[in-house]
């Protein structure tokens, strides 16, 4: 185990930033700490680095308790959100800093820096100063600088926050390749679920200082452990239904009540891709108007509005959209293929429920 947190909490005065968080990261893993801002993920990262001291709990790096070990002694590479390059030093000296404060021989430093400049495609930029670099170059310098003293763990705080969308994508791919090549244990903080899903082996999800779930991207997407995770990872339609006569209803929609007594409240959610749409108004049991179509490239996002004004979001492939002959503003029919009982926030989620094969599917069969 490379990093292990055991019941870590952090309070800033009266404010609790992190509450009783435990998880571990294996050697060579690439892990994302994901959550909305203020969720405590950056605080966790800073505690691992030694830039903050946990209020309680144990922090282990390679089996050794490091709670009281100062930041200098932890041998950790930290990349700040704003990169925090030394602006009075050129690129070479920035990258060399970690080695020169350790009083390594000059020749060794030069060799290591050259090696990193090559690896990070920064050849020829050694004499430039940070303000003469592009955002992407600055970030690469920041990572190279953190890696120069060969840290056992690389920590990155919102590494893709400060660059534009196109560079972001490049940097993501590049971080994955870099990780494959160096296989240094890497943790990064992000608030972008797509980024976390795409880049990491595992995702640790935080909200309001608590750990909500930890798992592979597939696990947290397909088996979210609570409503927060379900809604945070990807888009989800959420309905609150009142149970009556054994059926949970919300305006036109009704679902089996799943053991909730009459008068009870049931929350359920479904992914946009679970909504099946047809241009044929009789194809499925529910009818709605196709209010808006958002073109996203390969996929399209549809906004459906039922007669009572309920808005549902659906996602559909470009090809399928064309095949179905959908037109914005027209009446369509839809059904919800699968959904999930969310119950209340924080409770474990129920298994995904397949919608009953209704007459709608029968109609499609014909």
């Amino acid at each position: 185990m490379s990093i292990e947190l055991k019941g870590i909490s952090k309070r800033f005065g009266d404010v609790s930033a992190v509450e009783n968080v435990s998880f571990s990261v294996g050697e060579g893993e690439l892990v994302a700490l994901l959550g909305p801002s203020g969720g405590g993920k950056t605080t966790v990262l800073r505690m691992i680095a030694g830039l903050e001291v946990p209020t309680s709990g144990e922090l282990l790096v390679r089996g050794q308790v490091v709670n009281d070990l100062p930041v200098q002694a932890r041998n950790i590479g930290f990349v700040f959100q704003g990169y925090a390059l030394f602006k009075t030093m050129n690129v070479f000296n920035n990258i060399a800093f970690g080695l020169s404060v350790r009083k390594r021989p000059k020749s060794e430093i030069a060799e290591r820096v050259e090696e990193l400049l090559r690896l990070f495609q920064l050849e020829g930029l050694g004499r430039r100063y940070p303000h003469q670099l592009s955002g992407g170059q600055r970030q690469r310098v920041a990572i190279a600088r953190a890696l120069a003293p060969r840290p056992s763990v690389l920590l990155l705080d919102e590494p893709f926050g400060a660059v534009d969308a196109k560079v972001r994508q490049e940097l993501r791919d590049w971080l994955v390749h870099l990780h494959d090549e160096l296989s240094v244990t890497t943790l990064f903080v992000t608030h972008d679920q797509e980024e976390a899903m795409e880049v990491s082996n595992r995702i640790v999800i935080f909200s309001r200082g608590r750990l909500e779930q930890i798992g592979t991207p597939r696990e947290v997407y397909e088996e979210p452990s609570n409503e927060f995770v379900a809604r945070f990872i990807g888009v989800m339609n959420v309905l609150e239904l009142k149970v009556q006569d054994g059926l949970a209803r919300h305006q036109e929609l009704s679902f089996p009540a799943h053991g909730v007594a009459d008068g009870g409240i049931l929350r359920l959610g479904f992914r946009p891709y679970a909504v099946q749409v047809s241009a044929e108004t009789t194809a499925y049991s529910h009818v709605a108007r196709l209010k808006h179509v958002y073109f996203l490239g390969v996929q399209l996002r549809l906004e459906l509005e039922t007669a009572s004004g309920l808005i549902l979001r659906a996602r559909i492939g470009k090809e399928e959209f064309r095949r179905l002959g959908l037109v914005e503003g027209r009446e369509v029919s839809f059904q919800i293929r699968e959904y999930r009982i969310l119950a209340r926030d924080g409770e474990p989620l129920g298994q995904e429920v397949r919608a009953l094969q209704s007459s709608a599917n029968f109609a499609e069969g014909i």
Partner: protein
Amino acid sequence: MSAIVRSRPAVVSKSRRGSDESPWARRMLIGVAMLFLAIFLVLPLVNVFVQAFGEGLGAYFQALGHPDTRAAILLTFVVAVCSVGLNLLFGLTASWCIAKFQFPGRTLLLTLIDLPFSVSPVVAGLLYIVLFGRQGILGPWLDEHDIHIVFALPGIVLATIFVTFPFVARELIPLLESQGTEQEQAALALGATGWQTYWRVTLPSVKWGLLYGVMLCNARAMGEFGAVSVVSSGITGQTDTIPLRVVKLDMGIADHAAAFAVASLLAFLALVTLVLKTWLERRQNRELTLASSNLNEH
């Protein structure tokens, strides 16, 4: 000069906007400001040099070579070195504490640093007399132990430190605050000790501002009259600094040419300071814009 003035209207009409003053109003205002500067600043300065060299270079250097004058110059340098050095030490530590930490008494410290700006230098000098003078609070004890503070070098240095107190710290605090602490944290994370971080990251990022503060501090230390005159009591050849010597030559001995010769040293210092100041301000502005551009990216 006239050529420049003649070419003005064309430039003005090209760049005129609705909010601009009329060309005549502009010329009037600029003219008044220039005239004011000429009468109250340039003319006296020129006069200093004219008077100083009025009796030829030989007389000039002879005036400067007088033993009492030489003693005054030496004393001024010693006082400047001591007070600038001590204020540098104080300014660096105070500005670092204030910019990087929140602690009880922080606001009080900030206010106290500004105190010398609002207290008359004469009052400052008097404070030391009241404290260390023969009739002062610590006077008898100092007398017993044969320690001389007022009417001696320590008193002059103390008074000078008092009046030059704010220069270094005041210059550094806003600079350090605008830099934030991320670069320092980065240095620590890379394994640097606190000292290494300070010397290699913190200090270089404010070096131009620091130089600027030191230079202003030095100019004031060498030129201070009020506070120093109170604590030195002007013993010729012993506790006269350059400004005291100038006044003594002019008012006491009435050797005006010699007075102006010595005064020209201070005037010359002022000019050098002015040139350095302009240059440093430019470097420092770059420092500040760099710091703020780093912040904007967050």
